[in-house]
């Protein structure tokens, strides 16, 4: 099938990418844009490792067609640190609290967390859990992830930085 050029805004940068309609966003990000922080854990929307932010909401890029994403703001894990490379408070908090082991769930988990805290800056334990229930982690047992998110919320609140 003939490819067509589409424009995707990823991490505040515009990319012109040749795609066919069947190309999935996760593959376009990983292979055509060439940033591989977004992971493929199951391909069926059950693990959350492929999560990216679409206009601020967490979505599963393995079930999203790239062609449907024109005009939307996509943020991947690579877009979270600031321009000087300083870590986002969520990223820093994950490091400080030991919430990263094999790291494969981490990008998706952090982005889902960002969406959660953007919408609900002071989530209680239940809200945190509900917020990340679609992100599977097999290494950490989740406890340190939940702690890291609570700490990040506090940190963001005191710094008033998003």
């Amino acid at each position, binding site marked *: 099938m003939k490819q067509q050029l589409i424009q995707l805004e990823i991490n505040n940068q515009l990319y012109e990418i040749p795609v066919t309609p069947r190309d999935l966003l996760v593959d376009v990000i*990983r292979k055509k844009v*060439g*940033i*591989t*922080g*977004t*992971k*493929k*854990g*199951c*391909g*069926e929307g*059950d*693990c959350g*490792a492929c999560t990216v932010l679409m206009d601020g909401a967490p979505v599963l890029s393995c079930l999203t067609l790239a062609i449907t994403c024109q005009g939307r703001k996509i943020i*991947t*894990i*690579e877009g*979270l*640190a600031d321009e000087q490379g300083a*870590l986002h408070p969520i*990223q*820093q908090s*994950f*490091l*400080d*609290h*030991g919430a*990263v*082991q*094999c*790291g*494969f*769930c*981490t*990008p998706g988990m*952090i982005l889902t967390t960002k969406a959660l805290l953007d919408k609900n800056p002071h989530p209680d334990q239940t809200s945190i*859990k*509900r917020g*990340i*229930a*679609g*992100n*599977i*982690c*097999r*290494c*950490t*047992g*989740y*406890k*340190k*992830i*939940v702690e890291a998110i609570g700490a990040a919320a506090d940190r963001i609140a005191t710094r008033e930085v998003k």
Partner: protein
Amino acid sequence: MEGKKFSQVGRSVTRIDGPAKVKGEAIYTDDMVMARMAHGKIKRSTYAHAFIKNIDYSKALALPGVLAVITGEDAPNKWGIVPQTANEVTLAVDKVRFHGEGVAAVAAIDEETAEEALDLIEVEYEPLPVLLDPFESMKRAGEILIHENEPDNVLHQGEQLFGNPDQAFAGCKYVLEKKFYTSYVNHAFLEPHSSLAHYDPQNGQLQLWSSNQVPHYLHRQLSIVMDMPMNKIRVILPAVGGGFGGKGEASSSDFCAALLSRKTGRPVRVTYDRNEVFVTNKGRHPCHMKMKIGLDQNGYIQAVDFDNTLDGGAYAGWGMVVMFYTTSMIHLPYKVPNARARVRRVYTNKPTCGAMRGLGGVQPRYAMECLLDELAEMMGVSAYELKMKNAVESGYRSVSNLHVPHTEYKKCLQTVVENSGYLEKHGKQPFGKGIGLAGGYYISGTAYTLYLSYKPHTTVLIRVDTEGGVTVHCAAADIGQGCNTVMAQMAAEVLGVNYEDVHVVSGDTELGTFDLGSFASRVTYASGVAIKEAARQINDKLFEVAAGMLSCRAEQLEVRDRRFYSVFEPKKNIEWEKVVDVYTNTVGTLTGIGHFSPPRLKGIDLTRGERVQGANIGHSPTFGFSAQAIEVDVDVETGKVRVTKVTEAGDCGQAVNPMSVEGQVEGSIMFTLGQALYEEMHLDEDGRMMNACLHHYKVPTVMELPEMDTTIVDSYDPTAPFGVKESGEGPVQPTIPAIANAVYDAIGVRFTELPITPEKVLKALKEKQGK
């Protein structure tokens, strides 16, 4: 460096690879790109047991973009993680033995084309009867053989006898025998297997990047399958997204990638889909067990009788080792003076089972801890009292010749009971709420390599120079457990520098020095011994130089906080870098090399002059311990069991990185909670897996997270480097029985089969009501 006054060991430092991972910069095998890279996919059988009559892949080859196709004939050499039982092939030869076994592999210019090509490969099968139950397998071995050279459909069986259990049972006041069944579960690590092979036709060298946890064993297997010498093969681990034992051998993705690369002259990558991870499995062996324990009138264990039929699936894999581990695991953490174990590992037409976190321990532990719980009730004492009574102590030697140099198991039990309020809660809560206690242990490394060899199990090379600072080389595999960080901490400790100063080169069979791999919780202990030796060599040389620079004697010096100090005159001190600089100028790059060989117990027990049974499997330089008290809330109308709180106390010796240890403990508990309550792979009557996806294979989500209170008990093993033991497989052992015991406390039903589903609970409650 004696005692526990550490400066780098014991720090909860941020992981060395943490920043890359939170930024999405860590490179996993599927993230890599190479020029001209092709993509491979494997065609899998749609029969659980069948002869292959014909494979026609001409149409696949004709598809534009397809570069090559291989079948079993292209790699007939058998491989296997346990060489004595190696019966696996890259792709099926002549017959398939499980639904989903690879029969052909395609390399194409992109993944879509490779996938499309699979549909064009025509395979003709002659179906055979399917054996899905180990007992049926054994019974019908006369008519159906899974492996032609295994006439009973049994991989191996063993019998071990220590003392006189029958006589001992006869003298016991309390004897209990029950059957237990543990389920068919998968590791479900987040990163599917992925292998990228680059065969260079010009120099005949093969490089393989793989999501793997045993680079050395993979290296060996590649040599066998590719029919190439090992010194022409290099295995490199990029970041690895979890293993839990499932990546503790080789995968057909590794071999197919390598073979296709050699055939096409291009790099080839094979990455599994999630369903392939399930059907290639190598998960925990379902065990059909019978265990009998006898206590004397004072509650001391006098005998254990254990019978285990392991449902191994289609091939051998780790099977024999797992089988013998189940026999070994009954000898600890309690004193058992008489024991018999009869085990057999049986073939069935199911995806093969292999090594899974805490291998060979989880299954008998379930049986033993539940039996002890019930025996305590029979005796009228608390399970805590019974366990404390029988718990081993430092210096214990089991009848199976396991030597426990150091243990704080009793302290683990005490801590857990105190912190959880077990004695105040057990038997005293309203119907539906309960608390259960269980303990466990695991090895800190094995005594032997899987193939006969006398070489050290781990070698560490440390290089110090003015350009690189400190670099630790060791081909160990960091799969997320954090061993790179721990090695850096241990090296920094001995060298007197900071953790942050140390670089680690790992997971590369060419750049790193020899290491057996990440399994059996061996790396911290093994690398610790090697690091101490290597660092000591470096210190010896640097101390001499520093002494010259400070005008004192080398024996007077110590190194800490990046300075050399004279212990008698602390004002005499000098920066570490300056000393390194002088050494480098006068001699050159400074290296030290250390080796670790576990104590090699002979096949004979010297004290008794008897041959040690069980091939010394289960022996270890030291052991880690864990105790858990788990609280549940059972919805008695729907049968749903909710774990509300887990209290844990573990003996991991000196924790090198306490935060990492906590992460391993918390992870172990949630990992195993899944097996207790939610996880099970289901096969239909044709042997096809019905839930080979994370949709229907229910791993715990964060919503299942209970309150968790874990403690690293104060412990230091004086025989171990830095006092360390293990953590990461010990804490999986108590979880299942603690939950089962808690459910009993809650609703008065003892579950001897996993998983404990709402359906089973409800059924049991109704039966109980009916009585």
